[in-house]
């Protein structure tokens, strides 16, 4: 009932994977922000955000992606997004996220993408 949200971190080489579970709104966005900040503080800028268990996102959640992407790319990394359920994906889509972020189906594809050429800047 209290619409919980958790971030679970794992790593594949120099790619950090943040798996989101639950409801990402203005109440829970700070937890996600801290998780990304912790990666950047550790010098890790190749980030995959796996939203496979994300049940809900509001613009406050999208704002976390927005606030970090420039810095991450300046430092030679990227934030790739994967696994979104249709209803959550729809929110990313109507706001134009796919034009700026790599939004992919699977976590594996997102991780693999870091082996390829760097993403274009915004």
């Amino acid at each position, binding site marked *: 009932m209290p619409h919980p949200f958790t971030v679970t971190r794992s790593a594949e080489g120099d790619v950090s994977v943040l798996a989101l579970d639950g409801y990402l*709104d203005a109440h829970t966005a700070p937890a996600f922000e801290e998780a990304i900040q912790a990666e950047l503080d550790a010098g890790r800028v190749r980030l995959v955000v796996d939203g496979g268990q994300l049940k809900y996102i*509001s*613009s406050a959640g999208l704002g976390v992606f927005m606030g970090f992407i420039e810095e991450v790319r300046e430092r030679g990394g990227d934030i790739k997004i994967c696994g979104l359920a249709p209803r959550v994906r729809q929110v990313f889509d*109507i706001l134009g996220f796919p034009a*700026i972020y790599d939004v992919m189906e699977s976590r594996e594809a997102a991780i693999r993408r870091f082996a390829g050429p760097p993403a274009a800047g*915004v």
Partner: protein
Amino acid sequence: MGSLERRFSLHVPSATRNLALIREFVTSVGLQAGLGEDDVSKLELAVDEACTNVIEHAHHGDATKDVVVRATFDDHTLRIEVIDSGPGFDPARLPEADLARLTHERRSGGLGFHVMQLLMDEVSYEIVPGQTNRLRMTKKLR
């Protein structure tokens, strides 16, 4: 030929932890109004955005203030009002919600009002300075 109007309202302290309850409230109303799951999700998000703005921009996190959400529907229309007691603002003067620009400026916001307009049929804002501000949103029912 007015059909019976159903009225609901919810008052909660102005704090983000109450967004979950606000979403449950509006989801319940949306289902009763006969909206499909997809439209209920849109309604839920639009009202979350409106209440997040009230909590952050109107009441600045002051949890002694109230967020008030009213919802009514008849056979034709679902109406939502989100009421705050903040200073108000002029939505007509908001800059365009341009994701590339916002991202470039490292803004982590600026999309909320745009989301409401995308998801609802009508969005308007009535300011009574120093008293209450009312964000009104409507969704047509089939």
